[in-house]
């Protein structure tokens, strides 16, 4: 296998590199901060003839996803990128893409939703889309964003899956910060992704197919049940692609990654870039004799409930970090699902929820320390001061 290279790239640049190597047949996209750079870089690849892609510069994100849907149904590989309000404007079409079982891959650069207007990173956008039928992979850094993109089509196009995939990573802290990224050699990446095998392509004019028919009471339920099965199939496909990828790169992925969790008493679960901060804090506290551990959730859809229950059941207290809130509920979206996953476990920890990092507010090491000490106090006293709380907020 030819050697790849190591480069200093932003998350967006790494994503654009992945897209160059995948060389989708069509990319349809609209600019929005902070994902814009992905399509800027990609359009340069198009302009320089480095990819055969037909790049469609739509007049809105709604049309971007609509064009992706038309292109994918026509019978080829399709990608796009968006963030925040752009994802929100696609909302209607997200459900259509998954409902029509089109394996589109989208870089979702996480950003807060208005109002008030804020262009910085949090998970309000993709968490709001958690029920849209898209597979959601969260990357901690530029490397993971790149790796997830390369694995995404193998998952999306699996005949047992046939669902679109969002490759999420944090706005600015990852999208715009330069990191060391190991890239595969172009031909190795191309070989890994493989050739596309379309299912019922519209461009096969000898076999006309109707997409998006009206589905009434007598069929809609069956088609939704099929989608459940696609998500179920994704669990295996995600692990299979991770295994194939590990053989190629030595970098291994699963539904989640743990850090010193096995013998931990208190744990913290988070997604994306904050996981690295929490690993640092865990190592520090371990030196102080506190048995802390961490879990970084990579796959939020399909939600790996059983695996999480098995990995977290032994803890005394688990803190779930949510970088988005679900207003009027009793906690953030990740908290709800994790706590629900633990409910039937033979042994389960107390689970508390902290909302953090909204609108790009950085989670510092010191805040991480305070958070874990708070969790340790709960473990020691058995008393929960607040099951659902905001960190980093001024009174």
């Amino acid at each position: 296998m030819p050697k790849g290279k190591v480069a200093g790239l932003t998350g967006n640049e790494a994503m654009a590199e992945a897209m160059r190597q995948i060389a989708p047949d069509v990319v349809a996209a609209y600019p929005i901060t902070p994902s814009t750079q992905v399509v800027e870089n990609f359009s340069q690849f198009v302009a320089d003839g480095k990819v055969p892609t037909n790049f469609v510069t739509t007049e809105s994100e709604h049309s971007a996803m609509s064009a992706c849907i038309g292109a994918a149904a026509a019978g080829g590989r399709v990608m796009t990128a968006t963030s925040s309000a752009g994802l929100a404007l696609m909302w209607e079409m997200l459900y259509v893409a998954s409902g029509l079982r089109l394996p589109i891959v989208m870089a979702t650069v996480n950003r807060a939703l208005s109002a008030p207007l804020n262009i910085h990173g949090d998970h309000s956008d993709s968490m709001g889309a958690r029920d849209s039928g898209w597979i959601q992979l969260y990357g901690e850094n530029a490397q993971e964003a790149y790796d997830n993109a390369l694995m995404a089509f193998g998952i999306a196009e699996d005949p047992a899956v046939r669902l679109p995939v969002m490759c999420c990573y944090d706005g600015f802290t990852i999208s715009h910060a330069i990191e060391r990224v190991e890239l595969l050699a172009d031909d190795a990446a191309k070989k890994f992704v493989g050739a596309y095998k379309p299912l019922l392509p519209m461009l096969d004019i000898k076999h006309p197919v109707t997409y998006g028919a009206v589905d009434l009471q007598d069929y809609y339920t069956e088609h939704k049940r099929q989608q459940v099965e696609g998500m179920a199939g994704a669990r295996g496909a995600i692990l299979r692609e991770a295994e194939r990828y590990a053989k190629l790169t030595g970098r291994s992925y699963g539904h989640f990654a743990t850090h010193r969790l096995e013998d931990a008493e208190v744990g913290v679960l988070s997604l994306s870039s904050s996981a690295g901060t929490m690993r640092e804090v865990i190592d520090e506290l371990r030196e102080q004799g506190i048995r802390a551990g961490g879990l970084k959730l990579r796959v939020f859809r399909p939600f790996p409930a059983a695996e999480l229950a098995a990995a977290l059941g032994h803890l005394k207290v688990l803190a779930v970090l949510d970088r988005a809130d679900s207003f009027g509920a009793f906690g953030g979206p990740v908290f709800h699902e994790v706590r629900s996953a633990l409910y039937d476990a033979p042994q389960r920890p107390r689970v508390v929820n902290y909302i953090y990092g909204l609108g790009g507010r950085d989670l510092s090491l010191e805040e991480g320390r305070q958070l874990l000490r708070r969790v340790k106090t709960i473990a020691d006293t058995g008393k929960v001061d607040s099951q659902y709380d905001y960190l980093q907020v001024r009174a």
Partner: protein
Amino acid sequence: MTTATTTPLSLKELSKKPEQLAGGHRLCAGCMHSVIVRQVLMAAEQPVLASCATGCLEVATSIHPYSAWRIPWIHSAFENAAATASGMEAMFVSLKKQGKLPADADYRFIAFGGDGGTYDIGLQSLSGALERGHRMLYVCCDNGAYMNTGIQRSSATPLGASTTTSPAGKVLPGKLQWRKDLARIVAAHNIPYVAQASPHNWLDLMKKVRKALAADGPSFINVLSTCHRGWRSKPSQAVAILRPAVDSCYWPLFEIEDGKLTITYKPKAKVPVTEWLKLQGRFAHLFKPAPNEAMLTAFQERVDFEWERLLRQESCGL
């Protein structure tokens, strides 16, 4: 595949081609939408892939598992028939360029939308697709209201028409605004081909479809369509009722080829627009109990103004 010969636009010859819209769809008896689709697809010489906006046409022709379409067809949402078709066209171009489709593959892309999905909620998507220059034809089946949801006014609804959201009442005489001039808006995108047509003049419509599909870029045809439910007219007169719409010059038949306008049909005698209005229950309140002279005069004056402008535009070679 490239078609070497062109089917003459005679009904006898056209009827030898396979019917592309099957019966068994559930459009109302006497709906003009399917007549328009049949005529459009009959005129096409190349294989056609279509997208369709949400609306009567889409709903009634695709109730799972019964699709009336014998061509590859997709519906994805209400406001995006143009964007969806542009995606299909983009994929076609890409795969052909990459050699993933035969080099002689010669397909056409048509987006169908109603007036609500085109004049209103789909206007941005249409504008974007036109500006990007996809080789596709957009056909607007304009019956002048949101008929699928129960006859609500759209920006295509004629002045004075009573709809369920612009009802004629004790103080209001139906819709207060003139319709949006969509063909002009589309023409402002400077695309190769724009036309307005009516299915009662099938030959004119089919000629326009041929030209639109031959254009090397986006094309657009606005087609008047009868909805007897919304117009409150007789189903059997669905074709006949279109003639006074055109003969009164409310709905002129014209085309704009590379910026040059040609009126393709000039009535020998321009009939008063009331000849069209009085056939429709949606305008009944303008005639009974007493004629609403102000509204009827305003309607006629606007029709005359638009028609004169069209004639001037044509005579100037614009």
